[in-house]
C-alpha cells in the first residue's frame, strides 16, 4: 500500500496511525479503500481488508471531529474529592433527617400512650339503632320475608303500577292512625294485593319510622313485631325524601 511517501500493509498503516507516526487527517481514504480492494484476492481477504479499512476510516473520523472538551480530564481528577464531599454532604443531610425521624418515633410512642376524648367522627362510626329500640332491622326484614313468601309472584303480565309511594305513605298513616296505638306488622300487609304493594308499604313504614311518626317494637324474642303510632309530625316537619 502506497500513500504518498508512506508505504506498508494495511495493518502497518493502522499501527502507524494509532501510534501517531502518521497523521490520520492526511490519509486519503479513497486511495486506501481502492488499494485494499485491489490487493484482496478472495472473499475472506476482502472481509479482512474491509474490517481494517473501516478501522482506518474510524481513526480518520476521530482525528477530524472535534475531540471531546478537555474539561473532563482535569475535573475527573478533581471529581473524586468534589464528589466525595457532595456525597458526604448528602449523607449528612439525610442522616440529620433520619435522626429527626427517630425523634418523631419517640414522640409518637410517648403520645400513643396518652388518650384524649375520641373525636365525634370516630364515635359516629358505630351506628346506633335509635329508631328501632326494641326490634332490629334484621328482625324487621325477617318479618317482611314472611309476608313476602305469602304473596305469590305474578307472572305473564306487565301492568302500570296502580299504587304509588305517596299513596302507600298516606294509606299507611291512615291505617296506623285508625288503629290507635299499635298494629301488628303482618296486619299491615294482610290486604296487600301484590308484591309491589308490599314493597311500597314496607318502604312507607321505614319512612314513618325515620320521621319518628312510629316506632317498631318487639316485646319478646320471636314475638310479633308491632308498629307503635305516635302521630304525624306537625306542619313544617321535613318533607319525605323518599324516592318513588
Amino acid at each position, binding site marked *: 500500500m502506497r500513500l504518498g511517501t508512506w508505504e506498508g500493509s494495511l495493518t502497518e498503516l493502522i499501527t502507524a496511525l494509532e501510534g501517531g507516526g502518521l497523521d490520520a487527517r492526511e490519509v486519503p481514504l479513497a486511495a486506501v479503500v481502492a488499494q485494499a480492494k485491489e490487493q484482496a484476492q478472495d472473499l475472506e481477504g476482502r472481509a479482512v481488508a474491509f474490517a481494517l479499512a473501516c478501522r482506518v476510516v474510524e481513526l480518520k473520523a476521530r482525528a477530524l471531529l472535534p475531540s471531546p472538551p478537555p474539561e473532563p480530564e482535569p475535573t475527573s481528577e478533581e471529581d473524586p474529592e468534589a464528589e466525595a464531599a457532595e456525597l458526604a454532604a448528602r449523607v449528612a443531610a439525610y442522616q440529620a*433527617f433520619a435522626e429527626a425521624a427517630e425523634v418523631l*418515633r419517640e414522640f409518637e*410512642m410517648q403520645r*400513643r400512650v396518652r388518650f*384524649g376524648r*375520641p373525636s365525634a367522627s370516630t364515635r359516629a362510626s358505630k351506628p346506633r339503632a335509635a329508631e328501632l329500640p326494641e326490634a332490629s332491622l334484621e328482625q324487621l326484614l325477617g318479618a317482611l320475608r314472611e309476608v313476602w313468601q305469602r304473596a305469590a309472584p305474578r307472572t305473564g303480565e306487565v301492568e302500570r303500577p296502580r299504587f304509588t309511594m305517596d299513596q302507600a305513605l298516606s294509606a299507611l298513616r291512615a291505617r296506623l292512625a285508625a288503629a290507635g296505638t299499635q298494629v301488628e306488622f303482618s296486619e299491615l300487609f294482610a290486604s296487600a294485593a301484590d308484591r309491589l304493594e308490599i314493597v311500597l308499604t314496607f318502604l312507607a313504614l321505614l319512612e314513618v319510622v325515620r320521621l319518628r311518626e312510629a316506632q317498631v317494637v318487639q316485646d319478646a324474642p320471636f314475638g310479633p313485631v308491632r308498629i307503635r303510632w305516635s302521630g304525624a309530625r306537625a306542619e313544617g316537619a321535613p318533607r319525605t325524601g323518599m324516592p318513588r
Partner: protein
Amino acid sequence: MSEAEGLGPLAARLEAMLFAASEPLGLSRLALAASAEPASVRRALAELAAHLAADGHGVELTELAGGFQLLTRAEHAAAVEALAAPRVTPLSRAALEVLAIVAFQQPVTRAAIDEIRGVHSEGALGTLVERGLIGEVGRAEAPGRPILFGTTRRFLEQFGLRSLEDFSRVAGPDIGPRPQQLPHSER
C-alpha cells in the same frame, strides 16, 4: 365535685370544657367560650394543670398543636386500651423519615424528598396523606406544577407537639432551614 374544692370557678369551667372537647382548644377559643380574658384563662389553665398534677389525677392538661387538651396519663395506657381505645399502627421508618423531611423543609415537593432520601417516597407520602399528617399546601412553580407538601395540625396533635418550632428545637438545629409557619392553620 369535691375533688375540685381547691379549684377556682374559672379553672373548673375550663376543666369542664376541656373534658368535653375531642381536640386541643386554643386560648382564644377557651376565653371566648368561658367569657373570660385570655390572660386570666392562661392563669386558670396553669392552676388546673397544677391541680391535676398535685392531686394525682388520671388525666393531665397537655399543650398540643397550639391548644390545650386533657389527655390520660401514660401510666394508665393499658387500662384505657383495655376499653378498646382505637389503636393506630405506628408509622414505618420510611414514613417517619418523609414526615421529618416535610416537617423541616415544607413546603416541599416529592422530588425534593426523593432527592434527600435517595429512594422513592411515594408509598410513604400516601400513608402520611391518608392519615392526615401531611397535606397539599400548594403547587411549585416548576415544570408539571408538582404538589407541595406541608404538615397539618393533626401532625402536631398526634406527636404531642405544641408547635413546629417545638419540634425543630428538639430534633436538632443542624437540619436545613428553620421550619416555616404552617401555610394553613387548619388541616
